[in-house]
């Protein structure tokens, strides 16, 4: 028998298996990020936010929605995509993936595709929840979805790399916990970069998450710390770097093959 040119059966099989894993752990993987993000809205938006001045004409509770969604999206994209890969390495089932007639592109497409689907579902749930708690406005919905999708793909690819690289569950949390979360908090999730002293504004420009949050917030309220084109360019730059690393991983078999 001849192998199919594109092994779409395998893409679908991996995608389905990843989505099934997501569904099995729905409390941890759906409820927990939605609840914890909603708590931010309640505490910072509704409770404290009512005593705070609006920023650039946007009520504080509404102002923090894009940043918090971005925080959830980055952390969840990283951990979902990395978890699947590490699970295969950890349980030994990687043997089957490595011996299957599946190309590298197909493998990445299926794993990252499933992780992106999860991230988009979570983003939709968080957005719907926030609409109940704070006055929301979305000026550029197409841009908003586009930005969401682009960021998900980028960070799911990043997560895939993380899953290949990590040798333990502890290592899996280093990037989302110790790097991405602090960068998001310092990247303008809760404030506008304009509000920082000039020296800190300069430093903040080296934080890639600033560009993600700024662009995303622009799609909601039309205000941004940096121009939307710059934000887009930053996301594309991270995406290209991730693609290059994934290509290198498969070319060398790094941490996948002996």
């Amino acid at each position: 028998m001849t192998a199919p040119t594109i092994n779409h059966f395998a893409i679908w099989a991996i995608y389905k298996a990843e989505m099934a894993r997501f569904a099995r752990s729905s409390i941890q993987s759906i409820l927990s990020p939605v609840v914890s993000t909603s708590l931010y809205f309640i505490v910072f938006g509704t409770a404290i936010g009512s005593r705070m001045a609006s920023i650039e004409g946007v009520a504080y509770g509404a102002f923090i929605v894009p940043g918090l969604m971005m925080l959830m999206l980055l952390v969840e994209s990283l951990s979902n995509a990395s978890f699947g890969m590490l699970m295969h390495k950890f349980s030994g089932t990687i043997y089957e993936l490595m011996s299957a007639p599946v190309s590298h592109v197909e493998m990445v497409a299926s794993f990252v595709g499933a992780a992106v689907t999860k991230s988009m579902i979570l983003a939709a749930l968080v957005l719907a929840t926030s609409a109940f708690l704070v006055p929301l406005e979305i000026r550029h919905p197409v841009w908003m979805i586009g930005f969401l999708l682009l960021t998900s793909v980028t960070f799911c690819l990043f997560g895939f790399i993380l899953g290949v690289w990590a040798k333990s569950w502890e290592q899996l949390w280093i990037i989302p916990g110790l790097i991405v979360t602090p960068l998001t908090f310092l990247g303008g999730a809760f404030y506008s970069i304009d509000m920082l002293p000039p020296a800190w504004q300069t430093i903040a420009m080296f934080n890639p998450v600033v560009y993600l949050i700024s662009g995303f917030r622009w799609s909601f309220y039309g205000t941004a710390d940096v121009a939307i084109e710059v934000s887009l360019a930053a996301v594309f730059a991270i995406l290209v770097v991730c693609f290059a690393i994934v290509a290198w991983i498969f070319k060398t078999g790094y941490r996948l093959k002996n």
Partner: protein
Amino acid sequence: MSSIISISGLTKTYADGLVALSGIDLEIRRGEIFALLGPNGAGKTTLINIVCGIVNPSSGTVVAGGYNVITQSRQARFNIGLVPQELATDWYESVWGSVSFSRGLFGRPANPALVEDVLKRFHLWEKRDAKIMTLSGGMKRRVMIAKALAHEPTILFLDEPTASVDVELRRELWAEVRGLRESGVTIILTTHYIEEAEEMADRIGVINKGTMVVVDDKIALMKKLGGKHLTLHLQQSLAAIPSALADWPLSLGAGGHQLIYSFDSDGADTGIDRLLHRLTELKIAYRDLHTSQRSLEDIFVDLISERKGRGP
């Protein structure tokens, strides 16, 4: 007979410097059961993993089913099934889900009737909805085999298939393997039990320290390797073997208290009958006797010294 797998000049040195394979040349014939026999650490699993695409070789080429496993990996892998040594499956997945997943992964459209047939053949049908983590070790092994067969491979690798498997499953497995051979599947199994190789294989390759020591038809090889010993525990020790027994290849052991006879158990006439008769005639009394298979270790020692004797 045509080869379905051709391995030439295959070497593998791991990153830590361990030399697993040092120059393997091997032809597997289409439709045979080939046993790769060797002690732990001989390189059996490395060899299998290279053919299946899990390990990259350091040098050499492997052609499986007419396709180079590196440059035409998709087509080569499409027809290969692997049952690994370890029980590695998604523990939270159901039996049905896991076997169906494997079929899809290897590029086949869903075929519930075929998956049902495979599950029934391995007595997994009743457990099709059970999570794999709830199954016993033997049942998990059956799942591993079912997964490897779900895409109807024409080449099947079984890496230590009977490790930690009970007698019942072992018999079932052998019956199934023979059935697969009948349907035209080529089967390569690894084992460190000589009895297993003897029972199952058409041909046997002995591997030791990353080198093929010998590859031969089972019958020819077992003649060469499969000698047995008859040990007689004598009532009274002998100082030398009596000349009346010179027709038999005998030796003395335990300070003359044991008389050891080496014979070929596959031969039509083992000569035991006549030997015992002659001993009675000679009034050489014995209080116990037993026969033993030569151990694999003995055989390796023989084979390796034989090779050295032949020179490089």
